[in-house]
């Protein structure tokens, strides 16, 4: 699995130029370079008859076949493609070893973390909103993505668009999540269920937002829980405007990816201090509710707010007094 990256050796080590010949369909692919690996297999960039493709190989027929099943099901969904487009499934017999592989569309771009680091955090909201609309379609098809993390999200373009690339963890709703990475797993942090349901993915999206502010990630303390995560969110300025969206996602209180998307977009357009639990609340109402939450704000902001309210009071008093004066003069003149 993907999380084994640190300890596991590469499962294969084929140099560039290696020629892979499919046993069943006789197609020929030439390895250009390595794209990545996990304990379950390896992905290479290959040159096929019709151009570049990504080729995933594994000695486990199980993981290859179940990923192919997911990609086939994704390909039937209308709209922007949900995963990489599946090209072909085949076997390769080399030096007495049987290797299973499939080829798919090569999605070129940076992974989410590198992209945001190089292009700036202004992209975070947009890309996460795109991700959430893809997730909503995945959920509507009866799947849960499972192993959501920045490494599995590629930003292509321009125009920039986020794409999910590794469907190794994608699970039918109601079953047990097939594959996950601890930092993005609600079981690891909260001891919450690993049953595949939309809220499982939304928790991971919350953790992706945290990961973008903490590129090195962090481990849970003794008994990792919401408190530790809340503190981590509060400690980073760049997470300020996402604070309530992330917290709700971690608590599992968004019923769907679409709801989370609306909440996120709403928070972005209303600025940092907005806490609108209902997205349709008016701007004034949400501003009022945020000023009722003094503990959430750094003290400097509070002082500024106090100062400005003093100013408002003074202006109001002067205006009323001058109004009365005008009325008085008016009365005198009559």
């Amino acid at each position, binding site marked *: 699995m993907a999380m084994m990256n640190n*300890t596991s050796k590469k499962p294969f080590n084929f140099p560039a130029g290696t020629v892979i010949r499919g046993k069943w369909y006789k197609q020929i692919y030439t390895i250009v370079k390595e794209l990545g690996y996990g304990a379950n297999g390896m992905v290479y960039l290959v040159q096929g008859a019709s151009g570049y493709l990504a080729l995933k190989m594994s000695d486990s027929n199980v993981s290859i076949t179940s990923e192919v099943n997911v990609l086939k099901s994704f390909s039937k969904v209308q709209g922007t493609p949900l995963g990489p487009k599946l090209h072909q499934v085949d076997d390769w017999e080399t030096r007495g070893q049987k290797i299973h592989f499939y080829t798919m569309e090569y999605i070129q771009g940076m992974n989410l973390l590198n992209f945001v680091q190089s292009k700036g955090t202004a992209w975070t909201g947009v890309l996460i909103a795109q991700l959430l609309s893809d997730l909503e379609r995945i959920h509507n098809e009866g799947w849960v993505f499972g192993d959501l993390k920045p490494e599995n999200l590629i930003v292509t373009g321009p125009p920039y668009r986020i794409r999910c690339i590794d469907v190794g963890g994608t699970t039918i709703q109601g*079953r*047990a999540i097939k594959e996950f990475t601890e930092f993005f797993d609600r079981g690891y942090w909260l001891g919450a269920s690993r049953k595949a349901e939309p809220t499982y993915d939304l928790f991971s999206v919350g953790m992706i937002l945290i990961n973008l502010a903490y590129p090195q990630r962090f481990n849970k303390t003794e008994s990792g829980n919401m408190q530790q995560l809340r503190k981590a969110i509060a400690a980073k300025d760049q997470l300020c405007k996402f604070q309530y969206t992330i917290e709700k996602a971690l608590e599992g209180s968004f019923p769907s990816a679409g709801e989370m998307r609306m909440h996120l977009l709403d928070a972005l357009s209303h600025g940092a201090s907005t806490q609108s639990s209902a997205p349709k609340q008016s701007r004034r109402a949400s501003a009022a509710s945020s000023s009722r939450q003094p503990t959430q704000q750094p003290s400097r902001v509070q002082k500024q707010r106090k100062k400005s309210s003093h100013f408002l009071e003074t202006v109001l008093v002067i205006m009323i007094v001058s109004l009365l004066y005008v009325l008085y003069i008016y009365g005198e003149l009559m």
Partner: protein
Amino acid sequence: MMKTGTLRQILLLTDGCSNQGEDPIAMAALAKEQGITVNVIGVMDNDVIDDNGMQEIEGIALSGGGVSQIVYAQQLSQTVQMVTRKAMTQTLQGVVNNELKQILGKSASMEELPPDQRGEVMEVVDELGESVDMEVLILVDTSASMKHKLPTVKEALLDLSLSLNARMGDNKFSVFVFPGKRQDVEKLLDWTPKLETLTSIFSKLSPGGITPTGPAISEALTYFKKKRSLRGLLSRGDDEQYFEETI
């Protein structure tokens, strides 16, 4: 949905070579003969497991029909659940392959099918993996060198029950440690669907002593058997296959 039976596994957590009693590799082979899969996880710390230890770990899993993995203590949680699931899928695939052989003749197995036809077989394996009942007997090495790894082992086992309990099938876990206070093996936790109770018991453990891996496995087997003999009238004999009832 298909009617499924019970999968039986022994999960052995150790950090090195056995030094007393029967050959653990032979004992693992014995387990396999009785339809019980043996998986082994070698828990490294900063120290490394020597060649003998490594060979023994791989040997036990190989002859026990299971999966082995060497891992640093920090990565234990993910590994334990992965190894258990992988072994489960492997066993189920074996069962499905047997069925295929009966239908399609001797040489048929999922691997021999053209890629396009594998998908449907895989869906059957997936569905079985979701619905099959599991009995996992966890065997923890508590010799002196394991002492500071035990808190991580406890975490990993809680994590395992979280993963398996997300499935639709039922799970039963039991936990044994070796060496025990008086015998080679000591029961910590009787068959239960929840591993949470482990938390309090684990902290009372006092690791130390020898590593009788072989005797521990053979003792663990009798525990499965005892349990089974209670329901022996309902299920078929022990030794013919992994499954009581399949498909």
